């Protein structure tokens, strides 16, 4: 009753093909965008924007990237962290070699390098499949990490071996560097993420996205239907790595401000993978839900004891957070292996058939 499409007739295929064919969804998205672009900047604290929203958006974008590869094209990858690193280091090189480049352009461009590297490490996917492939992507992860350490040129031979974000301005407003306010950084990042998510949704609905899903669901049949595995897989690697690269650049330039190799280590690959799986493989919405869950929950958990006036050691909170997150992950997988996005869908389904408990087949 509450969530009824009844009465919403589509009279053209164009209308039926629209991204959000249902009115309630369109309203929902509008509200979210309003909150994201107006509500949060106006009402939220710096901490909320700087330490919750910005990382959340960075990870959501990375999760979109990984989801394209894993959820849509079916190629499990554990190299997300390194691809984010490629983006970050490229962006650093671009901004330091060509200091006049507009920083937004530099960030968007840095994804291209990540995409190229992604394609190179995607090549084995033509022969290697499934978990075997997942582990060979670790080769990318560790090799690239090693490069970030060994190739001094990448970090301009800094003594510290870290990349540090130079200050860049757009229209005289500092966008990167320490003096850029969280609000400015937040607005930049939320715009980029919104646009890129839209792009991803478009591509995934079209011919190319479909070809990835074909490869994912049944690669042999896809090939027998005229899909060239080479193109499909490599384009998925490229597209996905582009997103990861941009996310990496945003992570360093808009959030951390400086980064060592550890910022791109294997744990980040796992973190993003958590988000994708908890959120729901093969769902853009899921990426956001997953990122929120995995990033925000621990922060909330850490804040809880002091909110409740309990004097618990920070480390104990950390251990308990680990346990709780672990338990929740397993719990969610058991309740709904297809992630939060699917849970959301079931919720909608229930609303749709409400007040009846089940839809009849």
């Amino acid at each position, binding site marked *: 009753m509450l969530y009824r499409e009844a009465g919403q007739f589509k009279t053209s295929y164009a209308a039926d093909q629209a991204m959000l064919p249902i009115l309630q969804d369109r309203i929902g998205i509008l509200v979210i965008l309003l909150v994201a672009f107006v509500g949060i900047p106006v009402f939220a604290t710096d901490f909320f924007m700087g*330490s919750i929203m910005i990382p959340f958006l960075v990870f959501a974008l990375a999760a979109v990237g990984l989801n394209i590869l894993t959820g849509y094209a079916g190629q499990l990858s554990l190299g997300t962290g390194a691809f984010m690193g490629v983006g970050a280091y490229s962006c650093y090189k671009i901004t330091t070699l060509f200091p006049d480049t507009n920083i937004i352009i530099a960030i968007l461009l840095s994804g291209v390098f990540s995409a190229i590297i992604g394609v190179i490490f995607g090549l084995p996917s033509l022969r290697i499949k499934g978990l075997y492939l997942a582990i060979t992507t670790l080769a990318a992860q560790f090799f690239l990490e090693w490069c970030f350490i060994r190739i001094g040129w990448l970090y301009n031979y800094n003594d510290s071996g870290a990349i540090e974000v130079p200050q860049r301005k757009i229209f005289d407003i500092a966008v990167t*560097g320490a003096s850029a306010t969280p609000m400015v950084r937040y607005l930049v990042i939320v715009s980029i993420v919104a646009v890129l998510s839209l792009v991803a949704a478009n591509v995934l609905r079209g011919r190319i996205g479909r070809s990835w899903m074909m490869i994912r669901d049944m690669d042999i049949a896809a090939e027998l239907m005229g899909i060239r595995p080479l193109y499909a897989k490599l384009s998925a690697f490229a597209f996905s790595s582009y997103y990861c690269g941009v996310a990496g650049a945003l992570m360093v330039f808009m959030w951390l401000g*400086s980064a060592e190799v550890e910022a791109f280590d294997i744990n980040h690959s796992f973190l993003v993978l958590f988000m994708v799986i908890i959120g729901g493989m093969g769902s853009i919405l899921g990426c956001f839900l997953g990122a929120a869950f995995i990033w925000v929950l621990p922060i909330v958990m850490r804040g809880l004891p002091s909110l409740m006036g309990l004097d618990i050691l920070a480390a104990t909170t950390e251990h308990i957070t680990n346990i709780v997150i672990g338990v929740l992950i397993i719990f969610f997988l058991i309740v709904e292996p297809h992630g939060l996005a699917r849970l959301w869908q079931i919720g909608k389904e229930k609303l749709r058939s409400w007040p009846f408990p089940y839809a009849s087949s």
Partner: protein
Amino acid sequence: QAEDSMYMPSMTYRTGPFAGGGTPFADGYADYFNMLNERDGGINGVKIVVDECETAYNTQKGVECYESTKGNGALAYSPLSTGITLALIPKAPVDQIPVFSMGYGLSAAAAGEQFPWAFVYPASYWSQLSSILKYIDSNGGIEGKKIGFIYLDVGYGKEPIPLLDQLSESMGFSVAKFPVGVKEMQNQGSQWLNVRKERPDWMIMWGWGAMNPTAIKEAAKIRFPLDRFIGNWWAGSHSDLKAVGESGKGYLAANFSGIGQDFGAVQDILKYVVNEGKSKVGSPDDVGNVLYNRGMFNAVVLAEAIKVAQDTTGKTIIDGADMRDGLEAINLDQARLTELGLEGFTGDVQGSCSDHEGNGSIFIQQWSGSDWEKISDLIPPMTDVVRPMLEEAAESYVSDKPDWKGQACS
């Protein structure tokens, strides 16, 4: 926060792969402030609220800790992680909260002109390395020798390399480097095979966490003389050597903070905090361990800075900017140390506008098989060589930051 207290964040890592070092350090840090609160009712009557935030040695969590606590009136941050320090250095001037990376972080931060908001008392890595080399030189000469440098292959471990390269030319020794990846910390077989192949005369180690005991064990395995194997001050704690035990006998390490419980301040901690059950330390025996005392010293410097700031400004409750001034004006000479109950605990530490490392000296300690023993006098660094290099590095750090604000020091 309350009117009568000051807020002192404590970034800790009691979890994760480096928890072994992070835990005693955090204990020492918290216990000293608590001791001041218990014994003296705080500093000049103002209590210090120590608030721990767990970073797990992870830069992102560290930044998050920073962002979530900086609004509480935080006076200074000591992240105990080079990665977090690097992330905080650019933020410090904006938020007006000094970063005190005691003996770690960015060596270049010693140059106060360029880094008004960062401090590395009592010495930068480079100063430390120069002292270690001086020790080697005074124990059989260094010229013509081959020095092996084994280090954790991250920013922290790589920091001293430029100086090492420079000094190898001026002092006439050769260098062989052995990086140890974070993932290889407990799996150093090949590095030590390479050591055996290269046959260096001395080994210097820039290690942390599980890397240290593994390295010492491996060195013993290939029969490298342990009394020619020197760890830096993060590679010479009790927790490192506990796992090695008897077989680590002879191993050397640099240190700048006194060992043991024979200091007035430490006794007070035992009396007012530990024995009262107000400490998180595992057992009273752990008090006085190398890293415990180091964490305590971190607190000592901060407390001293607070006091200096209070005295100069006349305020009882100070803010980050006052704290910065206090840190800069710090003067921990032996007289003051004795007053604090830390006689002979460390060398003089004296800051100034341009000197943010305090010209600290180190001493060398040796593992007896069951405990650390101090075996050398204080060794001052080679300031003449190190200082110009620090300034140069500082220059290059700010060179691509057009809006960076340094300070003029006359």
